[in-house]
Protein backbone atom coordinates (compact mmCIF):
# COMPACT_ATOMS: atom_id res chain seq x y z
CA UNK A 1 0.00 0.00 0.00
CA UNK A 2 1.44 3.37 -0.96
CA UNK A 3 1.34 6.46 1.20
CA UNK A 4 -1.47 8.09 -0.74
CA UNK A 5 -3.61 4.96 -0.62
CA UNK A 6 -3.15 4.86 3.11
CA UNK A 7 -4.16 8.47 3.42
CA UNK A 8 -7.30 7.73 1.40
CA UNK A 9 -8.29 5.06 3.89
CA UNK A 10 -7.70 7.45 6.79
CA UNK A 11 -11.23 8.61 7.65
CA UNK A 12 -12.09 5.08 8.68
CA UNK A 13 -9.34 5.05 11.30
CA UNK A 14 -9.92 8.55 12.55
CA UNK A 15 -13.53 7.56 13.06
CA UNK A 16 -12.39 4.62 15.13
CA UNK A 17 -10.10 6.97 17.04
CA UNK A 18 -12.94 9.27 18.12
CA UNK A 19 -12.97 7.95 21.66
CA UNK A 20 -15.32 10.61 22.98
CA UNK A 21 -18.03 9.11 20.87
CA UNK A 22 -17.52 5.79 22.62
CA UNK A 23 -19.58 7.00 25.56
CA UNK A 24 -22.61 7.40 23.31
CA UNK A 25 -22.03 3.98 21.83
CA UNK A 26 -21.92 2.64 25.36
CA UNK A 27 -25.35 4.20 26.00
CA UNK A 28 -26.68 2.26 23.07
CA UNK A 29 -24.98 -0.91 24.27
CA UNK A 30 -26.58 -0.40 27.69
CA UNK A 31 -30.02 0.04 26.15
CA UNK A 32 -29.68 -3.12 24.11
CA UNK A 33 -28.92 -5.33 27.10
CA UNK A 34 -31.19 -3.84 29.73
CA UNK A 35 -34.97 -3.46 29.27
CA UNK A 36 -35.25 -0.82 31.97
CA UNK A 37 -32.60 1.29 30.31
CA UNK A 38 -34.33 0.82 26.97
CA UNK A 39 -37.61 1.95 28.55
CA UNK A 40 -35.79 4.99 29.97
CA UNK A 41 -34.36 5.88 26.56
CA UNK A 42 -37.79 5.49 24.92
CA UNK A 43 -39.38 7.75 27.55
CA UNK A 44 -36.73 10.40 26.88
CA UNK A 45 -37.18 10.04 23.13
CA UNK A 46 -40.94 10.57 23.46
CA UNK A 47 -40.51 13.52 25.83
CA UNK A 48 -37.96 15.06 23.48
CA UNK A 49 -40.31 14.69 20.49
CA UNK A 50 -43.16 16.21 22.50
CA UNK A 51 -40.97 19.09 23.65
CA UNK A 52 -39.84 19.88 20.12
CA UNK A 53 -43.33 19.63 18.65
CA UNK A 54 -45.18 21.27 21.58
CA UNK A 55 -46.36 24.34 19.64
CA UNK A 56 -47.74 22.12 16.88
CA UNK A 57 -49.28 19.53 19.19
CA UNK A 58 -50.80 21.87 21.75
CA UNK A 59 -54.38 22.86 20.84
CA UNK A 60 -54.15 26.13 22.82
CA UNK A 61 -51.60 28.60 24.11
CA UNK A 62 -50.96 27.29 27.64
CA UNK A 63 -51.25 30.77 29.16
CA UNK A 64 -54.36 31.87 27.24
CA UNK A 65 -57.75 32.11 28.94
CA UNK A 66 -60.36 30.05 27.15
CA UNK A 67 -64.02 31.02 26.86
CA UNK A 68 -67.25 29.06 26.56
CA UNK A 69 -69.49 29.74 23.54
CA UNK A 70 -71.68 31.85 25.86
CA UNK A 71 -68.74 34.14 26.65
CA UNK A 72 -67.97 32.89 30.17
CA UNK A 73 -64.44 31.88 31.13
CA UNK A 74 -64.14 28.12 30.69
CA UNK A 75 -62.80 27.61 34.25
CA UNK A 76 -62.53 24.28 36.07
CA UNK A 77 -63.95 22.30 33.18
CA UNK A 78 -63.76 18.53 33.29
CA UNK A 79 -62.07 16.75 30.37
CA UNK A 80 -64.01 17.06 27.13
CA UNK A 81 -63.33 16.83 23.41
CA UNK A 82 -62.28 20.47 23.20
CA UNK A 83 -60.16 20.31 26.40
CA UNK A 84 -58.76 16.74 26.67
CA UNK A 85 -57.52 17.20 30.22
CA UNK A 86 -59.94 19.91 31.22
CA UNK A 87 -59.07 23.49 32.19
CA UNK A 88 -57.59 25.26 35.20
CA UNK A 89 -59.42 27.67 37.47
CA UNK A 90 -58.35 30.46 35.12
CA UNK A 91 -59.66 28.61 32.09
CA UNK A 92 -56.25 27.54 30.75
CA UNK A 93 -55.96 24.26 28.84
CA UNK A 94 -54.28 21.61 31.05
CA UNK A 95 -53.25 19.38 28.14
CA UNK A 96 -51.38 22.24 26.46
CA UNK A 97 -49.69 23.08 29.75
CA UNK A 98 -48.49 19.47 30.17
CA UNK A 99 -47.04 19.52 26.65
CA UNK A 100 -45.21 22.80 27.19
CA UNK A 101 -44.06 21.66 30.63
CA UNK A 102 -42.02 18.97 28.86
CA UNK A 103 -39.79 21.67 27.39
CA UNK A 104 -38.91 23.16 30.75
CA UNK A 105 -38.33 19.75 32.32
CA UNK A 106 -35.98 18.63 29.55
CA UNK A 107 -34.08 21.89 29.33
CA UNK A 108 -33.60 22.03 33.08
CA UNK A 109 -32.81 18.31 33.33
CA UNK A 110 -30.29 18.13 30.51
CA UNK A 111 -28.59 21.49 30.91
CA UNK A 112 -28.16 20.93 34.64
CA UNK A 113 -26.92 17.37 34.03
CA UNK A 114 -24.47 18.68 31.43
CA UNK A 115 -23.22 21.28 33.88
CA UNK A 116 -22.90 18.69 36.62
CA UNK A 117 -20.98 16.30 34.35
CA UNK A 118 -18.60 18.97 33.07
CA UNK A 119 -17.91 20.57 36.44
CA UNK A 120 -17.79 17.29 38.36
CA UNK A 121 -15.53 15.59 35.81
CA UNK A 122 -13.16 18.58 35.70
CA UNK A 123 -12.88 18.76 39.47
CA UNK A 124 -12.47 14.99 39.75
CA UNK A 125 -9.80 14.85 37.04
CA UNK A 126 -7.75 17.70 38.46
CA UNK A 127 -8.06 16.55 42.07
CA UNK A 128 -7.28 12.91 41.30
CA UNK A 129 -4.45 13.63 38.88
CA UNK A 130 -2.53 16.23 40.84
CA UNK A 131 -3.44 14.92 44.32
CA UNK A 132 -1.60 16.69 47.15
CA UNK A 133 -2.87 20.10 48.19
CA UNK A 134 -4.92 20.63 45.00
CA UNK A 135 -6.84 17.48 45.89
CA UNK A 136 -7.22 18.56 49.50
CA UNK A 137 -8.70 21.94 48.58
CA UNK A 138 -11.11 20.56 45.97
CA UNK A 139 -12.28 17.69 48.14
CA UNK A 140 -12.85 19.93 51.18
CA UNK A 141 -14.98 22.08 48.83
CA UNK A 142 -16.89 18.93 47.94
CA UNK A 143 -17.33 18.21 51.64
CA UNK A 144 -18.82 21.67 52.08
CA UNK A 145 -21.16 21.03 49.14
CA UNK A 146 -22.16 17.72 50.73
CA UNK A 147 -22.90 19.47 53.98
CA UNK A 148 -25.33 21.94 52.41
CA UNK A 149 -28.97 20.83 52.67
CA UNK A 150 -29.76 20.62 48.99
CA UNK A 151 -33.36 21.76 48.54
CA UNK A 152 -33.41 24.60 51.10
CA UNK A 153 -30.14 25.95 49.69
CA UNK A 154 -31.44 25.70 46.13
CA UNK A 155 -34.59 27.60 47.12
CA UNK A 156 -32.64 30.30 48.92
CA UNK A 157 -30.22 30.76 46.02
CA UNK A 158 -32.98 30.86 43.40
CA UNK A 159 -34.93 33.36 45.51
CA UNK A 160 -31.77 35.44 45.88
CA UNK A 161 -30.69 35.33 42.23
CA UNK A 162 -34.22 35.83 40.97
CA UNK A 163 -36.73 33.23 39.80
CA UNK A 164 -35.75 32.06 36.34
CA UNK A 165 -35.10 28.59 35.01
CA UNK A 166 -31.48 29.50 34.17
CA UNK A 167 -30.81 30.41 37.77
CA UNK A 168 -32.41 27.12 38.79
CA UNK A 169 -30.06 25.29 36.41
CA UNK A 170 -27.05 27.22 37.68
CA UNK A 171 -27.87 26.52 41.31
CA UNK A 172 -28.35 22.81 40.67
CA UNK A 173 -25.02 22.60 38.85
CA UNK A 174 -23.27 24.33 41.73
CA UNK A 175 -24.82 21.97 44.27
CA UNK A 176 -24.84 18.63 42.44
CA UNK A 177 -21.26 18.42 41.04
CA UNK A 178 -20.04 16.99 44.33
CA UNK A 179 -21.13 13.36 43.74
CA UNK A 180 -19.65 13.25 40.24
CA UNK A 181 -16.48 14.99 41.40
CA UNK A 182 -15.90 12.51 44.22
CA UNK A 183 -16.47 9.42 42.12
CA UNK A 184 -14.41 10.64 39.18
CA UNK A 185 -11.55 11.54 41.53
CA UNK A 186 -11.56 8.03 43.00
CA UNK A 187 -11.49 6.54 39.52
CA UNK A 188 -8.67 8.84 38.40
CA UNK A 189 -6.63 7.91 41.48
CA UNK A 190 -6.75 4.32 40.33
CA UNK A 191 -6.20 5.08 36.62
CA UNK A 192 -3.18 7.33 37.09
CA UNK A 193 -1.06 4.43 38.31
CA UNK A 194 -1.83 2.34 35.21
CA UNK A 195 1.08 1.75 32.89
CA UNK A 196 -0.55 3.51 29.96
CA UNK A 197 -0.74 6.74 31.93
CA UNK A 198 2.94 6.36 32.86
CA UNK A 199 3.56 5.57 29.20
CA UNK A 200 1.99 8.88 28.22
CA UNK A 201 4.33 10.65 30.63
CA UNK A 202 7.38 8.78 29.28
CA UNK A 203 6.34 9.75 25.76
CA UNK A 204 6.42 13.37 26.88
CA UNK A 205 2.70 14.15 27.17
CA UNK A 206 2.08 17.24 29.29
CA UNK A 207 -0.06 17.04 32.43
CA UNK A 208 -3.01 18.58 30.61
CA UNK A 209 -2.65 16.18 27.70
CA UNK A 210 -2.31 13.18 30.01
CA UNK A 211 -5.44 14.23 31.91
CA UNK A 212 -7.68 15.05 29.00
CA UNK A 213 -6.45 12.80 26.20
CA UNK A 214 -5.37 9.72 28.12
CA UNK A 215 -7.39 9.60 31.34
CA UNK A 216 -10.63 11.46 30.54
CA UNK A 217 -11.96 8.98 27.93
CA UNK A 218 -11.60 6.23 30.50
CA UNK A 219 -13.73 7.99 33.12
CA UNK A 220 -16.34 9.29 30.69
CA UNK A 221 -18.76 6.35 31.06
CA UNK A 222 -18.77 7.01 34.79
CA UNK A 223 -19.48 10.70 34.15
CA UNK A 224 -22.40 9.67 31.96
CA UNK A 225 -23.77 7.47 34.73
CA UNK A 226 -23.78 10.39 37.14
CA UNK A 227 -25.14 12.66 34.41
CA UNK A 228 -28.13 10.40 33.84
CA UNK A 229 -28.86 10.40 37.57
CA UNK A 230 -28.47 14.19 37.66
CA UNK A 231 -31.16 14.57 34.97
CA UNK A 232 -33.70 13.00 37.31
CA UNK A 233 -32.54 15.01 40.30
CA UNK A 234 -32.65 18.27 38.38
CA UNK A 235 -36.20 17.68 37.08
CA UNK A 236 -37.37 16.73 40.55
CA UNK A 237 -35.71 19.76 42.13
CA UNK A 238 -37.09 22.17 39.56
CA UNK A 239 -40.59 20.73 40.24
CA UNK A 240 -40.07 21.15 43.99
CA UNK A 241 -38.87 24.73 43.65
CA UNK A 242 -41.78 25.63 41.37
CA UNK A 243 -44.28 23.81 43.57
CA UNK A 244 -43.09 25.81 46.55
CA UNK A 245 -43.67 28.96 44.54
CA UNK A 246 -40.07 30.04 43.88
CA UNK A 247 -40.12 29.25 40.18
CA UNK A 248 -40.45 31.59 37.25
CA UNK A 249 -44.17 32.54 37.18
CA UNK A 250 -44.07 33.15 33.43
CA UNK A 251 -42.85 29.67 32.57
CA UNK A 252 -45.25 26.74 32.62
CA UNK A 253 -43.50 23.79 34.23
CA UNK A 254 -44.97 20.65 35.76
CA UNK A 255 -44.07 21.87 39.21
CA UNK A 256 -45.77 25.19 38.48
CA UNK A 257 -48.91 23.29 37.41
CA UNK A 258 -48.94 21.35 40.65
CA UNK A 259 -48.60 24.55 42.63
CA UNK A 260 -51.38 26.17 40.59
CA UNK A 261 -53.66 23.18 41.22
CA UNK A 262 -52.79 23.07 44.91
CA UNK A 263 -53.43 26.78 45.45
CA UNK A 264 -56.84 26.63 43.79
CA UNK A 265 -58.02 23.66 45.88
CA UNK A 266 -58.04 21.31 42.89
CA UNK A 267 -57.35 18.42 45.27
CA UNK A 268 -60.45 19.22 47.36
CA UNK A 269 -62.53 19.38 44.21
CA UNK A 270 -61.09 16.01 43.09
CA UNK A 271 -59.90 17.59 39.84
CA UNK A 272 -57.60 14.63 39.15
CA UNK A 273 -57.41 15.57 35.47
CA UNK A 274 -55.50 18.69 36.54
CA UNK A 275 -52.82 17.49 38.99
CA UNK A 276 -52.33 13.82 38.07
CA UNK A 277 -50.90 14.35 34.53
CA UNK A 278 -48.02 16.69 35.55
CA UNK A 279 -47.30 14.44 38.54
CA UNK A 280 -47.14 11.38 36.29
CA UNK A 281 -44.89 13.21 33.85
CA UNK A 282 -42.43 14.18 36.60
CA UNK A 283 -42.39 10.60 37.80
CA UNK A 284 -41.81 9.23 34.29
CA UNK A 285 -38.99 11.65 33.51
CA UNK A 286 -37.21 11.04 36.81
CA UNK A 287 -37.68 7.29 36.54
CA UNK A 288 -36.31 7.28 33.00
CA UNK A 289 -33.12 8.96 34.23
CA UNK A 290 -32.67 6.41 37.00
CA UNK A 291 -33.41 3.49 34.65
CA UNK A 292 -30.63 4.60 32.34
CA UNK A 293 -28.36 5.14 35.31
CA UNK A 294 -29.12 1.62 36.49
CA UNK A 295 -28.21 0.17 33.11
CA UNK A 296 -24.91 2.07 33.16
CA UNK A 297 -24.16 0.83 36.62
CA UNK A 298 -24.60 -2.77 35.55
CA UNK A 299 -22.33 -2.25 32.59
CA UNK A 300 -19.64 -0.52 34.63
CA UNK A 301 -19.86 -2.80 37.65
CA UNK A 302 -20.75 -6.21 36.20
CA UNK A 303 -20.68 -7.82 39.63
CA UNK A 304 -23.99 -6.11 40.40
CA UNK A 305 -25.58 -8.34 37.80
CA UNK A 306 -25.91 -11.34 40.14
CA UNK A 307 -29.36 -12.69 39.55
Amino acid sequence: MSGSERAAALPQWTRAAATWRDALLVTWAVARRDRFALAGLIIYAVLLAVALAAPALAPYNPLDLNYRPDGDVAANEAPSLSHWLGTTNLGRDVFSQVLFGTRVALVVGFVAAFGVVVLGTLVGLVAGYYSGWVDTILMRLADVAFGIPFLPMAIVLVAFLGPSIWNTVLVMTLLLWRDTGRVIRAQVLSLRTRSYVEAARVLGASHVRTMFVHIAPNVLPLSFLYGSLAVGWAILTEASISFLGFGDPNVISWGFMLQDAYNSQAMARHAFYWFVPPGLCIMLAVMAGFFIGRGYEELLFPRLRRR
Partner: protein
Amino acid sequence: MSQLLEVTDLRKEYPLQSGMLSAVMGARRVVHAVNGVSFALEEGGSLGLAGESGCGKTTTAKLILRLLRPSGGSIRFAGRDVAGLEGLDLLAYRRQVQFVFQNPYEALNPRFTILRSLLEPLIIHDIGRSLTERVERVAMALDRVHLTPVETFFPKYPHQLSGGQLQRVVIARALLVDPLLLVADEPVSMLDVSIRAGVLNLMRDLSRERKLTTIYISHDLALIRYMCSVAAVMYLGTICEIGPTAEVIEHPRHPYTQALVSAVPDPDPAQPRRPVEIADTVPTPFQLPVGCPFADRCPQVMEVCRRVRPALLPEAAGVHVACHLYPAGTREAH
Protein backbone atom coordinates in the same frame (compact mmCIF):
# COMPACT_ATOMS: atom_id res chain seq x y z
CA MET B 1 34.35 5.67 25.14
CA SER B 2 31.92 8.28 26.32
CA GLN B 3 29.49 7.50 29.07
CA LEU B 4 25.90 8.08 28.01
CA LEU B 5 24.39 7.46 31.42
CA GLU B 6 26.10 8.02 34.74
CA VAL B 7 24.25 7.16 37.92
CA THR B 8 25.98 8.23 41.11
CA ASP B 9 24.92 7.27 44.62
CA LEU B 10 21.26 7.31 43.58
CA ARG B 11 18.77 7.25 46.45
CA LYS B 12 15.01 7.13 46.70
CA GLU B 13 13.30 7.18 50.06
CA TYR B 14 9.60 7.07 50.80
CA PRO B 15 8.36 8.49 54.09
CA LEU B 16 6.22 6.00 56.00
CA GLN B 17 2.87 6.95 57.43
CA SER B 18 3.83 7.11 61.06
CA GLY B 19 1.61 6.70 64.08
CA MET B 20 0.82 9.27 66.76
CA LEU B 21 3.62 8.15 69.03
CA SER B 22 6.43 8.43 66.52
CA ALA B 23 5.03 11.78 65.38
CA VAL B 24 5.33 13.01 68.96
CA MET B 25 8.77 11.50 69.33
CA GLY B 26 9.82 13.17 66.10
CA ALA B 27 11.05 9.94 64.58
CA ARG B 28 10.86 9.89 60.80
CA ARG B 29 10.67 6.42 59.35
CA VAL B 30 11.49 6.00 55.70
CA VAL B 31 11.61 3.14 53.23
CA HIS B 32 14.90 3.04 51.34
CA ALA B 33 13.74 1.80 47.94
CA VAL B 34 17.02 2.70 46.27
CA ASN B 35 19.96 3.16 48.57
CA GLY B 36 23.11 4.37 46.87
CA VAL B 37 23.18 2.88 43.39
CA SER B 38 26.06 3.86 41.11
CA PHE B 39 26.89 2.69 37.63
CA ALA B 40 27.88 4.07 34.27
CA LEU B 41 26.72 2.93 30.88
CA GLU B 42 28.62 3.71 27.71
CA GLU B 43 26.90 4.54 24.45
CA GLY B 44 25.73 1.38 22.74
CA GLY B 45 26.20 -0.66 25.89
CA SER B 46 23.62 -2.90 27.47
CA LEU B 47 23.19 -3.29 31.18
CA GLY B 48 21.19 -5.97 32.94
CA LEU B 49 19.81 -5.21 36.39
CA ALA B 50 19.07 -8.43 38.26
CA GLY B 51 17.64 -9.05 41.68
CA GLU B 52 14.63 -10.38 43.52
CA SER B 53 11.29 -8.59 43.93
CA GLY B 54 11.47 -5.40 45.92
CA CYS B 55 15.20 -4.85 45.53
CA GLY B 56 14.70 -1.50 43.80
CA LYS B 57 15.18 -2.44 40.15
CA THR B 58 11.95 -0.87 38.94
CA THR B 59 12.38 2.20 41.15
CA THR B 60 15.83 2.72 39.62
CA ALA B 61 14.26 2.54 36.16
CA LYS B 62 11.52 5.01 37.08
CA LEU B 63 14.13 7.39 38.46
CA ILE B 64 16.09 7.22 35.21
CA LEU B 65 12.86 7.82 33.25
CA ARG B 66 12.04 10.81 35.47
CA LEU B 67 8.74 9.24 36.48
CA LEU B 68 10.10 9.71 39.99
CA ARG B 69 12.50 12.25 41.42
CA PRO B 70 15.52 11.02 43.35
CA SER B 71 15.89 11.80 47.05
CA GLY B 72 19.64 11.94 46.64
CA GLY B 73 22.51 11.30 44.26
CA SER B 74 22.47 12.14 40.59
CA ILE B 75 21.62 10.78 37.18
CA ARG B 76 23.54 12.33 34.31
CA PHE B 77 22.49 11.66 30.75
CA ALA B 78 24.91 12.83 28.07
CA GLY B 79 26.50 15.03 30.72
CA ARG B 80 23.29 16.72 31.91
CA ASP B 81 21.64 16.27 35.28
CA VAL B 82 18.28 14.60 34.68
CA ALA B 83 16.65 15.66 37.96
CA GLY B 84 16.81 19.36 37.06
CA LEU B 85 15.25 19.11 33.60
CA GLU B 86 12.08 21.12 33.04
CA GLY B 87 9.90 22.20 30.14
CA LEU B 88 11.42 21.81 26.71
CA ASP B 89 14.60 20.25 28.09
CA LEU B 90 12.53 17.58 29.77
CA LEU B 91 10.56 17.03 26.56
CA ALA B 92 13.82 16.61 24.65
CA TYR B 93 15.02 14.14 27.30
CA ARG B 94 11.78 12.16 27.01
CA ARG B 95 12.43 11.80 23.32
CA GLN B 96 15.85 10.30 24.01
CA VAL B 97 14.88 7.84 26.72
CA GLN B 98 12.09 5.34 26.20
CA PHE B 99 10.55 2.56 28.23
CA VAL B 100 9.18 -0.91 27.55
CA PHE B 101 6.69 -1.87 30.24
CA GLN B 102 6.44 -5.11 32.13
CA ASN B 103 2.72 -5.58 31.54
CA PRO B 104 1.86 -5.06 27.86
CA TYR B 105 -1.84 -5.54 28.65
CA GLU B 106 -1.79 -2.30 30.63
CA ALA B 107 0.74 -0.26 28.69
CA LEU B 108 -1.64 0.79 25.92
CA ASN B 109 -4.69 2.95 26.46
CA PRO B 110 -7.69 0.58 26.24
CA ARG B 111 -9.77 3.23 24.47
CA PHE B 112 -7.19 3.97 21.78
CA THR B 113 -6.78 2.02 18.59
CA ILE B 114 -3.26 0.80 17.84
CA LEU B 115 -2.91 3.55 15.22
CA ARG B 116 -4.04 6.20 17.70
CA SER B 117 -1.62 4.91 20.36
CA LEU B 118 1.27 4.97 17.91
CA LEU B 119 0.40 8.42 16.55
CA GLU B 120 0.59 9.83 20.07
CA PRO B 121 4.41 10.11 20.32
CA LEU B 122 4.53 11.70 16.86
CA ILE B 123 1.89 14.25 17.85
CA ILE B 124 3.59 15.04 21.16
CA HIS B 125 7.03 15.54 19.62
CA ASP B 126 5.66 17.04 16.42
CA ILE B 127 7.38 14.50 14.20
CA GLY B 128 6.24 14.31 10.59
CA ARG B 129 4.70 17.13 8.60
CA SER B 130 1.29 15.74 7.77
CA LEU B 131 -1.03 13.08 9.07
CA THR B 132 -0.20 11.03 6.00
CA GLU B 133 3.48 11.14 6.83
CA ARG B 134 2.80 10.22 10.44
CA VAL B 135 0.66 7.26 9.43
CA GLU B 136 3.47 6.22 7.10
CA ARG B 137 5.90 6.31 10.02
CA VAL B 138 3.55 4.26 12.17
CA ALA B 139 3.26 1.73 9.35
CA MET B 140 7.06 1.49 9.18
CA ALA B 141 7.28 1.08 12.94
CA LEU B 142 4.77 -1.79 12.93
CA ASP B 143 6.59 -3.36 10.02
CA ARG B 144 9.85 -3.15 12.00
CA VAL B 145 8.35 -5.22 14.83
CA HIS B 146 6.95 -7.72 12.30
CA LEU B 147 3.28 -6.91 12.85
CA THR B 148 2.17 -7.31 9.25
CA PRO B 149 0.11 -6.57 7.28
CA VAL B 150 0.24 -3.31 9.20
CA GLU B 151 -3.17 -2.09 7.99
CA THR B 152 -4.96 -4.88 9.81
CA PHE B 153 -3.47 -3.70 13.11
CA PHE B 154 -4.34 0.01 12.74
CA PRO B 155 -8.01 -0.18 13.76
CA LYS B 156 -7.54 -2.83 16.45
CA TYR B 157 -7.99 -2.15 20.14
CA PRO B 158 -5.49 -3.53 22.69
CA HIS B 159 -7.92 -6.18 23.97
CA GLN B 160 -8.04 -7.66 20.48
CA LEU B 161 -4.30 -8.46 20.43
CA SER B 162 -2.25 -11.12 22.17
CA GLY B 163 0.36 -10.29 24.81
CA GLY B 164 3.23 -10.83 22.39
CA GLN B 165 1.63 -8.59 19.77
CA LEU B 166 0.94 -5.92 22.40
CA GLN B 167 4.55 -5.98 23.57
CA ARG B 168 5.66 -5.55 19.96
CA VAL B 169 3.36 -2.53 19.68
CA VAL B 170 4.87 -1.12 22.88
CA ILE B 171 8.38 -1.63 21.44
CA ALA B 172 7.30 0.01 18.18
CA ARG B 173 5.93 2.98 20.12
CA ALA B 174 9.15 3.36 22.10
CA LEU B 175 11.25 3.35 18.92
CA LEU B 176 9.04 5.81 17.02
CA VAL B 177 10.82 8.77 18.61
CA ASP B 178 14.32 7.39 17.82
CA PRO B 179 15.55 7.21 21.41
CA LEU B 180 19.18 6.81 22.46
CA LEU B 181 18.43 4.82 25.58
CA LEU B 182 15.83 2.10 25.93
CA VAL B 183 14.87 0.81 29.36
CA ALA B 184 12.94 -2.46 29.49
CA ASP B 185 11.39 -3.57 32.77
CA GLU B 186 10.82 -7.34 32.74
CA PRO B 187 9.88 -7.08 29.05
CA VAL B 188 8.81 -10.71 28.68
CA SER B 189 7.80 -11.81 32.18
CA MET B 190 4.09 -11.48 31.36
CA LEU B 191 4.40 -13.36 28.08
CA ASP B 192 4.09 -17.06 27.32
CA VAL B 193 7.42 -18.85 27.38
CA SER B 194 6.90 -19.90 23.77
CA ILE B 195 6.99 -16.33 22.45
CA ARG B 196 9.57 -14.83 24.79
CA ALA B 197 12.53 -15.67 22.56
CA GLY B 198 10.83 -14.00 19.58
CA VAL B 199 10.29 -10.73 21.45
CA LEU B 200 13.81 -10.81 22.95
CA ASN B 201 15.45 -11.48 19.59
CA LEU B 202 13.46 -8.63 18.11
CA MET B 203 14.62 -6.27 20.84
CA ARG B 204 18.21 -7.39 20.46
CA ASP B 205 18.20 -7.02 16.68
CA LEU B 206 16.54 -3.62 16.80
CA SER B 207 18.90 -2.25 19.41
CA ARG B 208 21.96 -3.53 17.53
CA GLU B 209 20.69 -2.16 14.25
CA ARG B 210 20.05 1.29 15.77
CA LYS B 211 23.07 1.22 18.14
CA LEU B 212 20.70 1.70 21.05
CA THR B 213 21.94 1.80 24.60
CA THR B 214 19.77 -0.54 26.62
CA ILE B 215 18.96 -1.39 30.22
CA TYR B 216 17.15 -4.64 30.89
CA ILE B 217 15.61 -5.19 34.27
CA SER B 218 14.88 -8.78 35.11
CA HIS B 219 14.96 -11.38 37.83
CA ASP B 220 15.92 -13.84 35.12
CA LEU B 221 19.70 -14.26 34.82
CA ALA B 222 19.32 -16.26 31.62
CA LEU B 223 17.62 -13.29 29.96
CA ILE B 224 20.34 -10.94 31.14
CA ARG B 225 23.05 -13.26 29.95
CA TYR B 226 21.38 -13.44 26.55
CA MET B 227 20.77 -9.72 26.17
CA CYS B 228 23.38 -7.75 28.09
CA SER B 229 27.09 -7.14 28.03
CA VAL B 230 27.19 -5.85 31.61
CA ALA B 231 25.27 -7.35 34.51
CA ALA B 232 24.52 -5.75 37.86
CA VAL B 233 23.03 -7.67 40.75
CA MET B 234 20.92 -5.62 43.14
CA TYR B 235 20.03 -6.44 46.70
CA LEU B 236 17.92 -4.22 48.96
CA GLY B 237 18.43 -1.07 46.97
CA THR B 238 22.16 -1.42 46.36
CA ILE B 239 24.33 -3.05 43.75
CA CYS B 240 26.28 -5.92 45.28
CA GLU B 241 28.11 -7.03 42.16
CA ILE B 242 28.59 -5.56 38.69
CA GLY B 243 30.78 -6.58 35.79
CA PRO B 244 30.90 -8.25 32.38
CA THR B 245 27.89 -10.56 32.16
CA ALA B 246 29.80 -13.75 31.44
CA GLU B 247 32.18 -13.13 34.33
CA VAL B 248 29.41 -12.31 36.81
CA ILE B 249 27.36 -15.37 35.92
CA GLU B 250 30.13 -17.92 35.45
CA HIS B 251 32.28 -16.83 38.37
CA PRO B 252 29.91 -15.16 40.78
CA ARG B 253 31.84 -13.61 43.66
CA HIS B 254 29.24 -12.17 45.97
CA PRO B 255 27.47 -14.88 48.04
CA TYR B 256 24.12 -13.43 46.95
CA THR B 257 25.06 -13.67 43.27
CA GLN B 258 26.22 -17.24 43.90
CA ALA B 259 22.84 -18.07 45.39
CA LEU B 260 21.01 -16.42 42.49
CA VAL B 261 23.08 -18.25 39.90
CA SER B 262 22.61 -21.59 41.61
CA ALA B 263 18.86 -21.00 41.67
CA VAL B 264 18.64 -20.74 37.88
CA PRO B 265 16.80 -23.85 36.73
CA ASP B 266 18.82 -26.22 34.59
CA PRO B 267 17.02 -27.37 31.45
CA ASP B 268 18.49 -30.86 31.94
CA PRO B 269 16.54 -32.57 34.73
CA ALA B 270 19.15 -35.35 35.00
CA GLN B 271 21.79 -32.85 36.04
CA PRO B 272 22.28 -32.96 39.82
CA ARG B 273 21.71 -29.57 41.46
CA ARG B 274 23.67 -28.14 44.31
CA PRO B 275 21.85 -24.99 45.26
CA VAL B 276 23.47 -22.52 47.61
CA GLU B 277 20.99 -22.21 50.41
CA ILE B 278 20.23 -18.80 51.83
CA ALA B 279 18.31 -18.40 55.02
CA ASP B 280 15.32 -16.34 56.04
CA THR B 281 13.71 -13.57 54.07
CA VAL B 282 14.74 -10.12 52.95
CA PRO B 283 14.96 -7.59 55.80
CA THR B 284 12.29 -4.92 55.49
CA PRO B 285 13.76 -1.91 53.71
CA PHE B 286 12.98 0.46 56.58
CA GLN B 287 15.12 -1.46 59.06
CA LEU B 288 18.28 -1.57 57.05
CA PRO B 289 21.14 -3.31 58.84
CA VAL B 290 24.10 -1.14 59.74
CA GLY B 291 26.62 -3.41 58.04
CA CYS B 292 26.20 -5.43 54.89
CA PRO B 293 22.51 -5.58 53.92
CA PHE B 294 22.93 -9.27 53.09
CA ALA B 295 24.64 -10.19 56.41
CA ASP B 296 21.56 -11.77 58.01
CA ARG B 297 21.09 -14.24 55.18
CA CYS B 298 24.67 -14.78 54.10
CA PRO B 299 26.04 -18.33 54.48
CA GLN B 300 29.59 -16.96 54.83
CA VAL B 301 28.86 -14.11 57.18
CA MET B 302 31.78 -12.78 59.24
CA GLU B 303 31.93 -10.58 62.28
CA VAL B 304 32.92 -7.50 60.25
CA CYS B 305 29.85 -7.83 58.00
CA ARG B 306 27.49 -6.77 60.78
CA ARG B 307 29.48 -3.62 61.59
CA VAL B 308 30.80 -2.23 58.35
CA ARG B 309 28.95 -1.80 55.13
CA PRO B 310 31.14 -3.07 52.26
CA ALA B 311 31.79 -0.64 49.41
CA LEU B 312 31.50 -1.60 45.76
CA LEU B 313 35.18 -2.00 44.85
CA PRO B 314 37.01 -3.49 41.89
CA GLU B 315 37.91 -7.13 42.29
CA ALA B 316 39.19 -8.81 39.13
CA ALA B 317 38.32 -9.19 35.45
CA GLY B 318 36.39 -5.93 35.46
CA VAL B 319 34.06 -7.06 38.21
CA HIS B 320 33.19 -4.78 41.12
CA VAL B 321 31.87 -6.45 44.22
CA ALA B 322 30.59 -5.17 47.56
CA CYS B 323 31.66 -7.94 49.93
CA HIS B 324 34.15 -8.30 52.78
CA LEU B 325 35.17 -11.74 51.51
CA TYR B 326 37.28 -10.08 48.87
CA PRO B 327 40.44 -8.37 50.04
CA ALA B 328 39.78 -5.12 48.18
CA GLY B 329 36.35 -5.03 49.71
CA THR B 330 37.50 -5.17 53.31
CA ARG B 331 38.27 -1.50 53.33
CA GLU B 332 35.69 0.65 55.10
CA ALA B 333 32.99 2.27 53.04
CA HIS B 334 33.36 5.80 54.23
